[in-house]
């Protein structure tokens, strides 16, 4: 078995708004190993996004431990979390979140700008990344000149910009038609297979979840069950 990348211990998260308290996550114990392709599913409001955001260091749990690469990120300060996000996390949003005034290439290079990579290196890397998601030659287009599927592929390339330890995607196919859905999933799968990239993907779409290696089902903030997807390790070796 490969090394543990994420480990949560009794991770809980509650949102307090006014007098109401919502327990979005309750005592989640979850282990994700390096190189896994995990789908997190569940009904709306079951806590998928909440869990993913905490794993991605975009948010903090209310209690419990979150170990990311051996570091308890719950104990890190805001600027340390920033650094973790910059260096170790590649996040893909359901709504792409590309900056409209930047070209595809510039969007991909954006995270590298904090990383202080030299300009030629950045250009080289963004060109490679765009090619790897099938967008060679589209680097100069703005988001509004790209289709939804293409935009999401730019977003995946951006997530990979700083060579993260894991790609975390929240409903990456939620806004896409079946063809683009398939394209995005196969990019993520290829990433997982070819580079051993850890992928954690939130989806409420059963078909999409089935294409992962392991499915974690949430219900009302708890892990209801775990199962295997159709994307098995054996299949992985064949591909």
């Amino acid at each position, binding site marked *: 078995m490969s090394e543990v990348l994420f480990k949560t211990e009794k991770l809980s998260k509650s949102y307090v708004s006014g007098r109401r308290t919502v327990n979005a996550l309750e005592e989640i114990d979850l282990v994700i190993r390096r190189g896994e392709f995990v789908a997190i599913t569940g009904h709306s409001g079951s806590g998928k996004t909440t869990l993913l*955001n905490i794993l*991605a260091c*975009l*948010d903090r749990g209310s209690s419990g431990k979150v170990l990311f690469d051996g570091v308890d990120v719950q104990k890190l300060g*805001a*600027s340390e979390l*920033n*650094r*973790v*996000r*910059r*260096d170790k*996390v590649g*996040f893909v*949003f359901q709504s792409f*979140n590309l*900056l409209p*005034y*930047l070209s595809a290439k*510039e969007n991909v290079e*954006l*995270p590298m*700008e*904090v990383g*202080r990579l030299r300009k030629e290196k950045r250009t080289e890397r963004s060109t490679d990344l765009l090619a790897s998601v099938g967008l060679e030659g589209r680097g100069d287009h703005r988001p509004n000149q790209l289709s939804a599927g293409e935009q999401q592929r730019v977003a995946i390339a*951006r997530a990979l910009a*700083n060579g993260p330890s894991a790609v975390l995607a929240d409903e990456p196919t939620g806004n896409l038609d079946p063809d683009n859905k398939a394209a995005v999933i196969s990019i993520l799968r290829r990433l997982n297979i070819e580079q051993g990239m850890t992928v954690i993907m939130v989806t409420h779409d059963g078909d999409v979840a089935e294409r992962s290696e392991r499915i974690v089902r949430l219900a009302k903030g708890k892990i209801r069950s775990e199962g295997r997807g159709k994307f098995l390790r054996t299949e992985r070796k064949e591909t």
Partner: protein
Amino acid sequence: MPIILHFRRNVLRNRTRALVIVVMVGLTLGVFLVLSQVGNSIVAYTGEVEASVPNIITVQPANNFIGGGYFSLTIGAGSTTGLDANASAIVAATPNVVSVQRVFTQPLDLSSATSGATSGGSFTCGSASNPGVLGEDTTSQLKLVLGGLSGAGAVDVVEGRSLASSDENSTTALVSQAYATATGKGIGSNMDVNGTEFTVVGIFSQSCYTLIFPYPAAASALGITQASILYVVVNQYQNLATSLSSLQSRLGSSFNVQILANADRSSLQGAISAILLAANFGEYAALASGAGIVVVVFAMINSRRTKEFGLLKALGFGNAHILAEMLLESLVFTVVGLPVALAISYIAGPGLAQTILGGVGASTQLASPGSGGANVSARGGSNPFLQGIHFAPTLEVVLFGLAVTLILGLLGGLYPAVRALRLRPTEALRHE
């Protein structure tokens, strides 16, 4: 470096947004520049007026010295202790005293005026053969006094010229119209006073028989050693009261020291304070509302970027980076807005100033402030406030605008930046 890069792309590629901001900033600053120029003009002119109105204290012998006034001179009454050279020196050496004008009044021929008149007899208005003489210092900033003691108006020369400070040690003379008519004297005529030859250089309007000579020559020709009154000019209005008491204590009780009653003076002072207050208030109000508008504009425009900041945070950009980008952006916008502001101020300034100050009009020009005859140099023209005002972008105006701009820019950028920083990336990303 990435800050500038990111900023440049953001600004250059959101042209409409940039244009709106620059115009808003320019408009606000332009109005502010105009108002501050208007304020400056008010302050400058008011200061000029204030400086031109002398603050006068009179010093007289406590008891009637020779008489209570030239035109109703009471012969032989009262004390004979006048203001001699010693008293004048004490006055001149008193702190805050700017200048001293000595004045004496006496009939040209004292013995003939008093002959046959015992104590209590009077000498009024003089005659063609024995006119009244006023010896006056010409070096003071005050106009020559017409009648003599306090309450007298200023000399109004109708022909020739008045006495200037260069006449102080000469034997030039002014004569009243009545005297000139009665004796046939004109400009250039000579007259002999106890062996001293005086030359007439000007004729002033008066129906009494009066001669005005520079004090030193007049005093020596008539054997006068003591002045009847000193007009003491104090540097500042605020120092009048302290100067009054220090003069009184230095001179002792044998002299009356008084602030020259001057209704114009006190009402002027009140008006000046009110005007200065209003001018400053207007400027601060413009600055405050300008800052308010700029801050609101930036806040509005940047709140649409909250999601973007959330994304930048999610990608690992630090708070310092986001703050720096925001501040840089608002600074650049305001600095770019400055030329717009200068243009607006240059084009719309005169009209706005006319609207604001046009109603002030000629009524603000001072009448000669009464007794003592101060030499007020009011600006000419119909509206003195509009005269010194200029809206051309001089270096001074540009630097001033730049300073204000930088402050507004920082204020405008700080609020939205700090607000954006307090959000967690997930919260910021939820913003639409």
